[in-house]
Each structure stands twice: as structure tokens, then as C-alpha cells.
């Protein structure tokens, strides 16, 4: 085991930020911290990376107490990638080489070149790092972290705010690292689907407490993960019964049938009722029926539209209500307004199924 956290708490100005956290981080394993904003994910990562001190509790690295070893050698074995990458006011090369220079390593030029290739930024060495786009900066930050081969990598919402191309590159790289290296990786996110694909182990944080934890595979199919999904504010939660017809599986929501991708196990458990959730980003909106491989296509009427940050949250009634997230541009291009008829399309595999164990009403879970 790399890192062991025991009864860790952190308060600041009388406010409890972390409350009695117990955690184990292992080599070659990917750990995900999931939780809404303000759950304490960032603080926990910062404490693990020695940027902040806990109020109470112990942390052990390879069995040695954080408090009893020298800061510098310990800190040099790990790296924290902040949510907003910070670039030094110098060239990309100097930014990436920073960790190597601090450690007085050799072959800096070679290593920087290789790692820049990994993040698809070859030839950018001489560019001023302050002129990079957000996505490029995040990739440089990742290169800067990987170049000195740390044992533990902490990633604080690494794909947050990235453009789709950078997001893909960063995600691919994170997956590559996970499969190739001996490193322990700890990643915080509120992207559930990413966590599901990435993590070996998952910890749900809420208001500074770990409310649920376990092997990712179990968490994402276990009953209580539904609760976790709900507390994260996931919309489009449905309850119904599964049945099979024409070699396909459907979720019967009384007013609507949704095709789902399911295993036999799901089917057995789902005869008596399952809950399903569908991320708002997974639904496509069109004004005409949309022909695609996606199995679910429903017609409905827009009942509500709200701007949330740079995005628009749209509610459409197709017998039951679906919440969809889209960009302002998409809204304007399709000229979407409340009352307008729209078609919603999503894949069967976008519907996450979990056994029903919470109180439900009608076709929509509370």
C-alpha cells in the first residue's frame, strides 16, 4: 500500500471541511473521489500532497508517518495536478522541464521532447506557456507532471472545462497511464461515467465525509450507488420493470418504454423493478425525427428552459419528463423555446440500471 489515511479531519475557521476520512491508496490502482463541489475533494488531495496540513489524523506513505519524514523527499515522489493548471511565465520547455531541473536530472531535453509527444504538443517547446489555451495548458501541466515519473499522481478534475479534443487526449493519456504504469493514481471528478470507466476503487464524498466507498464495479451496480448518484444531483431518474421483447430489453415506465442494454443478471433482478438514470448530456435534441443507431427516440414538448452557466437545461415532456443539457448555440440554432415540439434521442447503453431500493412514485424517482 502506498498511502494510508487514518481518521483525517480538517477544519478551517470553524468550518468542517473533511470529517474523519479513512482511505487507502495502492500502487497500480486508480482511485476516484466523487462528489459535488465543496465536498472536500480538492482539500483532501492538497493534504495528501502536503500543500495543506490536516487538523487531525494521520497519513502514512509506505508505512511512514507524514509528520515524521522530511517534506521535500516525500513531496518529490508525488505530484498534484490542480484543477486550473498554473503555468510559469516562461516557455513550454521550461515549464515541462521544471520538475527535472528541481531534481537535477540529466537528459532533460530528451525527456521533455518525449513527454510532449505523449500529450500531442510536439514542437511547442519555445512557445510562451502563458499564451496556451486552457486545453493545451492542461496537457502541458500533465506533461510537466509525468516527465519526472512520480510514484503517485493526484489529479483534481483533470478534464474539467476542457474542449472536446483536449479532453479526449487527457482522458486517453490517463487511461494509458493507468494500464501501463506502476503508479498509484487518485483522481477527483464529478463525471460519473468517466469514474465508472476509469476507477478501480471509488469513494463518494459529501460534505467532507466519505458516504460510500468500494470497488468501482460493485459501486456502480450496487443499490446504494443509486443513492450516491442521486445525491450528486443526477436528473432523469426513473423506476420501472424490465421485460424482454424481440431479443431486446425494455424498461417499462408505464407511460413510456425505454430500450436498455442489460445483462441477464440485470434482467433477473429487474423483473420486480429497477431504477435507471440517464445523464442529461447523453440525450440528443432535434426538431425532426432523428435517424441513427440510437435505440430510443421520443417525441415531446419543451416545458421548461433554464440557463445554467454557459449551458441550457431543457425539460421536455414525452409522457415522462426528461432533462437535457445543451449549449446556447444549439438552442439558438434549433430555435428552441418552451412549448415547441422536439424529438429526444439516446442510446440504450446510455441508460444506467440499478436495482430499485428507494421510494418511488409514478414513473419518475423522487
Amino acid at each position, binding site marked *: 500500500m502506498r498511502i494510508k489515511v487514518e481518521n483525517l479531519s480538517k477544519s478551517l475557521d470553524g468550518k468542517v471541511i473533511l470529517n474523519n476520512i479513512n482511505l487507502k491508496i495502492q500502487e497500480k490502482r486508480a482511485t476516484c473521489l466523487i462528489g459535488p463541489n465543496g465536498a472536500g475533494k480538492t482539500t483532501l488531495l492538497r493534504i495528501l500532497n502536503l500543500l495543506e496540513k490536516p487538523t487531525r489524523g494521520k497519513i502514512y506513505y509506505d508505512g511512514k508517518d507524514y509528520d515524521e519524514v522530511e517534506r521535500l523527499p516525500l513531496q518529490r515522489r508525488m505530484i498534484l495536478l490542480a484543477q486550473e493548471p498554473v503555468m*510559469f511565465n516562461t516557455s513550454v520547455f521550461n515549464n515541462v522541464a521544471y520538475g527535472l531541473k528541481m531534481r537535477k536530472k540529466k537528459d532533460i531535453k530528451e525527456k521533455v521532447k518525449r513527454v510532449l509527444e505523449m500529450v500531442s504538443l510536439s514542437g511547442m517547446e519555445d512557445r510562451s506557456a502563458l499564451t496556451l489555451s486552457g486545453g493545451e495548458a492542461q496537457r502541458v501541466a500533465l506533461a510537466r507532471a509525468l516527465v519526472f515519473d512520480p510514484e503517485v499522481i493526484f489529479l483534481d478534475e483533470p478534464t474539467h472545462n476542457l474542449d472536446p479534443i483536449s479532453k479526449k487526449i487527457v482522458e486517453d493519456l490517463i487511461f494509458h497511464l493507468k494500464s501501463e504504469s506502476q503508479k498509484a493514481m487518485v483522481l477527483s471528478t464529478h463525471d460519473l461515467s468517466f469514474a465508472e470507466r476509469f476507477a478501480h476503487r471509488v469513494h463518494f464524498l459529501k460534505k467532507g465525509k466519505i458516504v460510500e466507498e468500494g470497488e468501482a464495479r460493485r459501486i456502480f451496480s450496487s443499490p446504494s450507488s443509486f443513492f450516491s448518484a442521486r445525491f450528486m444531483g443526477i436528473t432523469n431518474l426513473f423506476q420501472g420493470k424490465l421485460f424482454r421483447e424481440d431479443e431486446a430489453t425494455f424498461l417499462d415506465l408505464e407511460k413510456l418504454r425505454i430500450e436498455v442494454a442489460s445483462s441477464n443478471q440485470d434482467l433477473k433482478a429487474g423483473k420486480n423493478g429497477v431504477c435507471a438514470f440517464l445523464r442529461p448530456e447523453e440525450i440528443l435534441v432535434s426538431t425532426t425525427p432523428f435517424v441513427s443507431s440510437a435505440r430510443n427516440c421520443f417525441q415531446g414538448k419543451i416545458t421548461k428552459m433554464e440557463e445554467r452557466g454557459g449551458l441550457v437545461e431543457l425539460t421536455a415532456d414525452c409522457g415522462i419528463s426528461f432533462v437535457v443539457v445543451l449549449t446556447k448555440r444549439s438552442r439558438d440554432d434549433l430555435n428552441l423555446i418552451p412549448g415547441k415540439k422536439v424529438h429526444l434521442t439516446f442510446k440504450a447503453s446510455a441508460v444506467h440500471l440499478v436495482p430499485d431500493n428507494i421510494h418511488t412514485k409514478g414513473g419518475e424517482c423522487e
Partner: protein
Amino acid sequence: MAYLIESLHKLTEFASSFDKEVLSIVLLSFRVSSTAVFLSSFVSLPLGLLLTLKDFPGRRVIISIVNSLLMVPAVAIGLIVYLLLSRQGPLGAVGLLYTSWAMVVAQALLVIPIITSLSLAAFQSVKRGVRETALTLGANLRQLILTMFKESRYPLLAALIMAFARLIGETGMTMMIGGNIRGSTRVMTTTIALETMKGRFELAIVLGIILLVVCGLISIPLQLLQGAGRR
């Protein structure tokens, strides 16, 4: 108007046979003020850095003191240094009064609060994230300090230039401490003051022009640096 034309006429004569005295006055001005900036930065920059990096009890008090010292008039510093260095003063035995080193000391004292305050602002302009990025990338204290200097290089250099510009134009205090002794402690500003009072305008005008040119030239890199810092 006649005296002005007269002066300008003499000025051309004067400039053509460029005076050794003028040169030595200009050089002394530069030497005294740049030495003062150099020496005071050894106090001010570490202090500015310390006040940025460490949160210790009394930190706010020190910052308040530094800021109020900015208000102290130069002539008051001149008086204090004079009293310290005069024959009867506690440091009278060193015999510094009316030497260029006494001027350096007084000028350095004058700009220590200025450089401290400006460098504090410069270091604080380096975001907390930069410091933490340096730490998480494995910087030790020395490397962290070096990074802080590199990151704030533009506003820091601007601070030093502004301090130098303040000193090169300082008159009253420098006159009190240096005594404006010909060939020894006469700098541009004190000479201009003296020659003007004597009614010998040509030397005053030559030095005045040089002073204006110097200040003008200084402001160019200053503008550039401040622009670069803002980017």
C-alpha cells in the same frame, strides 16, 4: 528673455567644449543613486519576499509600518541621517558627513520603504497557484525563491527603476547630507539648485536637460516592463 537667450548661447559654447566637471557631476549622480538602490534592495527584496511567503504574527504590523514610512518626507530622513553622522552624533566618529557615502546611506534609507512596498506588490502578484505548483513539482526553498523572482521579474525591475528615478531627482536631502561640495559631493540636482540661485543658468540648464533626458529614457523601459508584467 535676454538672459535665457544668453544662457542658450553660452550653452552651445559649453556643450562644444564638454566640461569635465559636468561629466563628473553626472557620473556621481548615477553612482550615488544606483549604489543606494543596489544596497537597499538587499534589505527590501528579502523583506518583501518574507512578507509574501510567511504568515507570521506581526506581519500586518510590518506592512503598515512600511506603508507609513512611504509618507516620511526626504528632508526628515536627511535631518535624522545628519544628526547621526554629524561630529557630535553617535556615528560622527566615522566621518561620513559631507561625503558621497553619506549621500548613499540617506538615499538608501529613503527608498527602502518604496522598494519594499513595490516588491511586496510584485511578489504578491505571483499567484498562490504558482507557488504551490513549484512546491508540488518538487522545489526546495531556494528553488521556490528563485521561481518567485523569475515570475515577478518585470514588476521587480520596474520597482528598482522607479526607486532610481526617485533618487536621481532628489535634491534637498542630498544637499543637506552631501553639502554640495565642488568636485566631491556635487550631483546634478544640487548643482542645478545652486547654480540657479547664483544666476549662472548655463550649467543649470545643461544639467537640467541631462536630468530630463535621463528620466525620459528611464520611463521607456519602465512602461515596457509594466506592459510586460500586465500581460
